[in-house]
């Protein structure tokens, strides 16, 4: 159970005009701008739900994911995930969540994937039995058997992403955050990842929160979407609420953004 109430986060960003003279001026006097990444955001996500968290670039998606995963402290508001405030009790909180950032890697670069998994086993203190069971299941579902002995740096993006997802699930988290998990993947890998996520949600009742720009991900996976723009929740409903009579979800979404001036 995830409850987020009235969460706000403001970033201080230093700004200056281009060019030498303004760079010189900035040495003595910095000008800052305050960006409201999140502005009074509230939502509740129940156990076992699969939610698409979408919005244009810079809407505050990543900030939300960071707050939910305990990396970022908001300026205001409360957040309870299974009874824990993530940023106050980061270490305890992280035991129960899995996170995949599509644009980053969590595998240790120079060693075989298996070595990374063994280390994760120690980090999360996964008991041998659970570890073995999870590893077998994930290897099977994500077709990893050929990949585990390869160093992470020699995997293709699609192969690596499958390994990354498995790495986030070894400790049987109840909640999985996926931040653009299909970015840059080819059609086959995309489908494999989607299938896997759907299966995981159905069989293990894992709560999944997914951010993506790929509307097909959303259509394939989630019934509920939370749409954020300029740091505020614009819509909490289903894909049909914006779909209306547009030809594609993409167009519908673009029209929705435009009507909200973003």
């Amino acid at each position: 159970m995830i409850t987020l109430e009235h969460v706000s986060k403001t970033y201080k960003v230093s700004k200056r005009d281009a060019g030498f003279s303004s760079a010189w001026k900035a040495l003595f006097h910095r000008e800052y701008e305050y960006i409201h990444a999140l502005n009074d955001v509230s939502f509740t996500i129940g156990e076992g739900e699969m939610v698409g968290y979408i919005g244009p670039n810079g809407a505050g998606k990543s900030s939300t994911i960071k707050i939910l995963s305990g990396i970022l402290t908001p300026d205001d508001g409360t957040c309870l995930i299974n009874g824990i405030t993530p940023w106050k009790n980061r270490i305890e909180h992280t035991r129960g969540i899995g996170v995949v950032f599509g644009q980053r890697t969590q595998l240790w670069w120079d060693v075989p994937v298996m070595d990374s998994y063994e280390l994760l086993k120690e980090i999360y203190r996964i008991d041998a039995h659970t570890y073995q069971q999870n590893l077998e299941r994930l290897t099977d579902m994500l077709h990893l058997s050929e990949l585990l002995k390869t160093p992470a740096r020699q995997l293709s993006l699609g192969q690596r992403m499958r390994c990354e997802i498995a790495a986030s699930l070894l400790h049987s988290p109840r909640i999985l955050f996926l931040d653009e998990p299909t970015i840059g993947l080819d059609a086959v890998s995309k489908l494999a990842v989607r299938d896997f996520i759907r299966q995981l949600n159905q069989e293990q009742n894992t709560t999944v929160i997914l951010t993506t720009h790929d509307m097909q991900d959303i259509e394939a996976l989630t019934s509920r979407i939370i749409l954020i723009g300029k740091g505020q929740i614009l819509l909490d409903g289903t894909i049909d609420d914006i779909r209306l009579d547009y030809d594609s979800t993409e167009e519908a979404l673009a029209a929705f953004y435009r009507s909200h001036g973003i």
Partner: protein
Amino acid sequence: MHLTKSPKLHPSSLRKYTAFFRLHFTMGLQYRTAAAAGIATQFVWGAMEILMFRAFYQTPDNGSFPMTFQATSAYVWMQQAFLALFMAWMMDNEIFTCIIDGNVSYELCRPIDIYNMWFSRSMAGRCSKAVLRCMPILLVAAFLPKPYGLMAPASVPAFLLFLLTLITGLAVTVAFCMLIYMSAFFTLSPEGIRMVAMSVVEFFSGAVIPLPFFPDRLRGFFELLPFGSMQNVPLRIYSGDLSGAAMGRAILVQFLWLIILVALGKFLNALAMRKITLQGG
């Protein structure tokens, strides 16, 4: 200011940090070419340094020198053999980049204390480098003719104390480097701090000239600095230059600095965890 408390290190959670040590130690052992190049460099460097000192020792009034030529040679060879343990400039660039580009967010999504993790990682990296490099250097230096080579340690207890202070000295070096890693959370461009810190460590730790060669009052002061608790202590214990009460005091100072630097590093870590904004989307 309220700081999030870092968890106490109890034995069962120590396991994950030893696992980190193991992984990074084995990782370090992969880099054979770097090790071979390092060994060659260190041989040449050691030989040059000893030849330079030889020139000084040939002056008529060399009786006033603080260390015997044999002790100086041993100091230099030990320093070259265990260079990777103490050279502050051998920092882990991956740690800097993961802070600057925001990849550290993955580390923060895990039930792990960043400070402890990077500490064990740095210790492991340095140990694996040293293990790969020390043997050939020690072996050859041991067979060089007196007074140019490495002599056997003065006694078994002295050798054990050498090993103890070698490890403490390594820990002090790593704890100092941790402060620089932590500074990357606050400045975004740690290069400046890093360069200044590296030169300071080089000079004050006795990496360029062993501390006994400095004038007495300066030396007394240098020995009290954290830098004097790095390579200075083990290398001088091995070469027999440091013994008795002075040695006891040096070991005590080493432990004090270790505690102070770790406490300071953990404080910066807690501050960083509370204040940082992670970079990049």
